[in-house]
């Protein structure tokens, strides 16, 4: 009777918490945060700006390009740390309670081989031994699951502030500095084509070179617009990832709450949309 009560209690307690929505959010966010394409423009845009300069002016930008290449490596590393953290969080939250059936079978076999199970008075009955093995297995699962939840909570609370700070730092660089660099590229591009247009107009070439210069400038500006859209999509993803992480921290003690699951599903969809936008804008 006692054995049955104990077994029931362990079975009830072993209803492992489902953190699938946490895992999914973390993994989708990891893939999106690690986008090289958005960072590539930090150096790429300056390289394009360099091509717009006359040969004798290009050397002026070399030192700046070298410094930016180093900074770009650090930006990529920062993105990578975010992605790695989100991946680990996703792994911890995944339904990764280990399958221990083979180990339990071997435990059961060892008990029999060692002659601890049998019919004599000094031995355990077969049913008792089976129940003992089952309880050992359930306890192992429960302990692992509790330990997993405690680990996730500890991780979320430890990383809360630095994670938000890194997200804010990356956001700042993308929103302010990369955007400003694209404005510089816009100005450098306009300078070249507008000079062509002005020269054509002065030479009374109103229908030839002048409109062609305008059209080519428009095309170049559209390319810059597309790169700016990619930055916007990445900033959107960073904001959503930050928002989702803050929700996780706020609900660290109740990660399987229905409200949180619903919020995370919505946020995951938004991160996926940003991911698809970035991908689409890279391939266009």
């Amino acid at each position: 009777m006692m054995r049955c009560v104990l077994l029931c209690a362990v079975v009830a307690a072993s209803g492992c918490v489902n953190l699938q929505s946490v895992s999914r959010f973390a993994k989708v966010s990891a893939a999106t945060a690690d986008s090289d394409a958005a960072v590539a423009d930090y150096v790429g845009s300056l390289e394009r700006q360099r091509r717009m300069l006359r040969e004798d002016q290009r050397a002026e930008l070399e030192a700046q390009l070298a410094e930016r290449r180093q900074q770009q490596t650090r930006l990529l590393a920062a993105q990578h740390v975010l992605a790695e953290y989100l991946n680990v969080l996703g792994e911890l939250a995944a339904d990764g309670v280990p399958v221990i059936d083979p180990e339990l079978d071997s435990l059961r076999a060892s008990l029999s081989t060692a002659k601890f199970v049998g019919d004599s008075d000094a031995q355990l009955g077969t049913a008792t031994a089976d129940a003992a093995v089952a309880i050992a297995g359930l306890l192992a699962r429960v302990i692992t699951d509790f330990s997993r939840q405690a680990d996730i909570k500890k991780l979320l609370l430890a990383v809360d502030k630095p994670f938000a700070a890194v997200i804010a730092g990356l956001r700042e660089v993308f929103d302010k500095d990369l955007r400003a660099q694209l404005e510089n590229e816009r100005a450098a591009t306009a300078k070249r084509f507008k000079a062509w247009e002005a020269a054509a107009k002065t030479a009374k070439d109103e229908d030839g070179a002048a409109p062609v210069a305008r059209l080519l400038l428009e095309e170049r500006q559209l390319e810059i617009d597309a790169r700016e859209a990619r930055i916007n999509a990445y900033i959107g993803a960073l904001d959503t990832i930050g928002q989702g992480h803050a929700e996780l921290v706020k609900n660290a003690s109740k990660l399987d709450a229905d409200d949180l699951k619903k919020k995370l599903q919505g946020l995951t969809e938004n991160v996926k949309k940003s991911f698809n936008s970035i991908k689409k804008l890279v391939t266009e």
Partner: protein
Amino acid sequence: MGLSKDECRELARQIREISVAVGDFRFEHWGELTAAQRQDLERDEASLLTKSGEMITRAVGLTLEDMDKDLKLVTNAIEKARKALKTIQDVKNVIAISAGVIGLGGAIFAAVATQNPALIGPTAASLTALVKDLTAKSK
């Protein structure tokens, strides 16, 4: 005292605007300017854009410096979380070793009962191999 990142950004913006204004002047007065004057203005525009870019580079450098400490904290947390993931795996290992120890106990019991110590050898060897294998995997 050095410039703050926001001051760098503001300077980058203002310098770019001056460059664009110089350019606008050049295009609007193209016919009135000599080729040499146009070249001088164009050189100034390019130089101003370079200076604006330098301010952007400096702002990014300062932001990266600010992020360094936080990145280190996140990296440390990742290491701890990886250890936690390994602990979950270790539960499996503990059960496997327990089963091996029980088997060894049975072999010792049988060896004493039959006065045949050779019965212990194979079980002990397989337990040693199991522990070695799990130790190698957990590294």
